[in-house]
């Protein structure tokens, strides 16, 4: 039986990818940020999963306005890093896990969540920056990755409650897979940030810290927070945080072990939050 061993939460700011790709991680601006992930890289080496189920959002890369799936699961054998306008990031291609992905798709759809199945998709910084933060610059990523893209570009995005319930369904789906795989689920995006309009640059550290507290101790309560609170308090792009609730929902109902917590402002326009929770 497969099981979810841990969940990882992190922001996926594109400038972090640029800093890594251009060897700027030691610069004074970036040094405190990358220091916050040193523990995490060692932890991932010590707790290498068989598969990472990576929840992220596509930033108008694979999905234009022609097609806007609310939840899309990548079932392909591999996914290429996308050219987002600057040329593709120099990172390894992402190897998928079509068997587990298809199993989860079937299970979750039978559980009343209408996923879109994607068999061809390039993956953008939303997926590759978390991998870079957690793995550095390897020749190949440490294990297969199942990309799970959530629409947070065109409103309305799925509610926190829906995301949390979907995570619970993903947790059940993983447990019903026969092969004894160790699976990690990662939730990415956020934390507070706004990239548009005269309110660009908004950061709300107090709200972010409370979000982290509640994600750990009261995720079901946190899942009731409506969209408008994210927009008003954490900025229009802070809404990405609903994706963290998918990862949290897939965890055991018993309290998790908090093995790492980190928060830093700023990375470019964004507050960076990071958590690692292990299942008991």
């Amino acid at each position, binding site marked *: 039986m497969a099981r979810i061993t841990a969940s990882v939460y992190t922001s996926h700011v594109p*400038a972090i990818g640029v800093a890594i790709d251009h060897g700027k991680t030691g610069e004074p*601006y970036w040094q405190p940020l990358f220091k916050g992930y040193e523990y995490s890289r060692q932890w991932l080496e010590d707790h290498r999963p068989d598969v990472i189920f990576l929840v992220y959002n596509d930033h108008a*890369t694979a999905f234009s306005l022609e097609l806007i799936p609310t939840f899309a699961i990548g079932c392909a054998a591999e996914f290429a890093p996308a050219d987002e*306008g600057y040329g593709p990031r120099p990172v390894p291609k992402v190897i998928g896990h079509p068997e587990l992905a298809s199993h989860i798709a079937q299970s979750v759809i039978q559980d009343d969540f209408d996923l879109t199945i994607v068999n061809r998709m390039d993956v953008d910084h939303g997926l590759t920056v978390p991998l870079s933060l957690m793995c550095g610059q390897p020749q190949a990523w440490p294990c297969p990755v199942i990309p799970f893209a959530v629409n947070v570009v*065109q409103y309305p995005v799925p509610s926190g409650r829906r995301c949390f319930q979907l995570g619970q369904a993903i947790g059940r789906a993983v447990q019903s897979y026969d092969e004894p795989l160790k699976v990690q689920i990662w939730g990415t995006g956020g934390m507070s940030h706004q990239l548009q309009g*005269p309110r660009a640059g908004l950061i709300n550290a107090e709200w972010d810290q409370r979000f982290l507290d509640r994600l750990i101790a009261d995720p079901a309560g946190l899942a009731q927070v409506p969209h408008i609170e994210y927009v008003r308090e954490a900025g*229009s792009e802070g809404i990405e945080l609903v994706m963290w609730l998918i990862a949290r929902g897939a965890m055991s109902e018993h309290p998790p072990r908090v093995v790492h917590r980190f928060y830093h402002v700023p990375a*470019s326009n964004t507050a960076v939050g990071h958590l690692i929770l292990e299942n008991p």
Partner: protein
Amino acid sequence: MSLNKPYLDVPGTTIFDAEQSRKGYWLNQFCMSLMKADNRARFKADERAYLDEWPMSEDQKQAVLARDLNRCIALGGNIYFLAKIGATDGRSFQQMAGSMTGMSEEEYREMMIKGGRSVEGNRHLGEDGDAQPHRQPQGAAGRALRAAGAAGRTGRR
């Protein structure tokens, strides 16, 4: 019954909903086309000619030519799509975001290093935070503009 849009009273913020998306469809699809290197080269060679290949409004084309991102957003653009224009120009996301505030690049960067923009006064229209309409543009440029305006008014008196 009309749709529930509780986000219309957030200052300095446009939520990209179905209505905005419909307005901005071709503007955003034009932006998408810049993800291909060949298209970026063609756009850079003759921006106007490239824009004329798209069924965008004249207002949308002018906003792109002027790189006026606030105007692009008002006309239905979404920042993740508009970012492709910035990428084509070799600008960072921070430069793009900062350009919408009226602050200089250095002013905006400094604000972020100091912890970003405060939410205080910026939750609802009608408060007095720095993102409110009556405080635009921000930064030294805005202060100079308002000082000149005040001097002008005094002079006329």
